[in-house]
């Protein structure tokens, strides 16, 4: 299987039906996949931090590090490559936290809040969400079928799109 790895603070877009996009070890980071089943185009991003204002220089070099600049970039590029907003399937995973977290380390919660706002502003729905908890997750997006999988602590869950025959 041709896995294409999305590193932390990076994103990838694919139109190749054989590709599987994968990102590992989502802790408080958020992983988002955006998929158009008709165009068979999908994107995946792995963002570390909520807002780019914390480090503008870094945001200029590595926009995908932040949820705000990263999502904007990936969505623009997806729209340029022909996806339609009305057809998009969006899945979100990650945003977890360390034990009993009432500290400044609640980055996961902040990441997810910013992401929700961005989707809401763009009138986009989250179709699948697997977030929070004290676990780390690996996600995959199958470009050919739109299958989305989340693996955590040895268990893998598949989410398939409804079949239209």
């Amino acid at each position, binding site marked *: 299987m041709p896995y294409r790895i999305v590193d*932390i*603070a990076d994103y990838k877009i694919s139109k190749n039906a054989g590709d599987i996009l994968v990102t590992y*070890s*989502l*802790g*408080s*980071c958020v992983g988002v996949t955006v998929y158009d089943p008709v165009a068979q185009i999908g994107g995946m991003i792995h963002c*570390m*931090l*909520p807002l780019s204002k*914390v*480090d503008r220089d*870094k945001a200029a*070099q*590595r926009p995908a*590090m932040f949820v705000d600049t990263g999502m904007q970039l990936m969505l623009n590029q997806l729209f340029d490559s022909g996806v339609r907003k009305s057809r998009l399937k969006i899945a979100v995973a*990650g945003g*977890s*936290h*360390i*034990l*009993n*977290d009432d*500290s*400044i*380390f609640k*980055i*996961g919660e*902040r990441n997810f809040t910013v992401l929700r706002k961005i989707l809401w502003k763009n009138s986009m729905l989250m179709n699948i969400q697997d977030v929070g*908890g*004290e*676990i*780390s997750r690996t996600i995959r997006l199958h470009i050919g079928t739109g299958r989305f999988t989340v693996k955590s*602590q040895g268990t893998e869950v598949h989410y398939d799109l409804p079949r239209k025959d």
Partner: protein
Amino acid sequence: MTYPEKIERRIEEFPEMPALCRNLLQSLEDPNVDFSQLEEQIQYDPGLTSNVLRLANSAYFGAAGSVNSLRVALMRLGTRRISEVVTAIMVSPMMLRTLSGYDLRTQDLLQHSVWVAVASEELARLKGYRDVKMLFTAGLLHDMGKIILDPFVREQQENLLHEGLSQSFDQREKEYLGMSHAQAGATLLGKWNIPQEITAAATWHHDPESAEEYPEQVNMVHLADILGYAEGIGTGVDGMKYRASQMAQKRLGLQKSDIEYVASLTLDKMNELQSLLT
């Protein structure tokens, strides 16, 4: 044999700190050390020489302009950095291994360790702590105990991971194995006879409140470690199951924006050093 006995034995059997590294660290304790003598010690090891040159030319340790003689590289690094660079080169290969008990892939422990080394220094710089001795190395070596504990963590994985308890992973290690990876690591580093600052950070990195000495090293390494886990850097099965110390956050006057800024600075530096050390 009980687990603590098995762990002790594994520490006994673990490789010594390479002699060259130990000798260099000793020479470097003298602030007026003779650089030509250091050069002599290093140049007979061509692998070490080329690695020192590569790190001296990195964005993280280096300065503008490239260096291609060992002597110039050593002068430019300065005594403090030479000891950090040499230790990193010598110890990194020991960290490149799969730890199936913790569910860490070959690169994960080194990656996490480099993250903690860099993020500790970034935190110190941001909060105005100057000259926190051995901070980089303390960060780099804080989790050596995981290499020691791994086979036993694997045996006890089910107990260590069962849900429903609010115990942190290091407490569970103590309960089921009689020793945490922090304690095991500190014992190993003690046997290696390396500076106290480094051993203290390893000992207390999950329990900074109890630290009796070197609070700066301990707090920075603790916070950098938690930040690394929060960001998913080298997280295995234990990754999110640790607690952040309120005391350490207060001591440094740390804000949300501080840790986010440190995280944004650390990622690329970690990537650079990790690829040079692999």
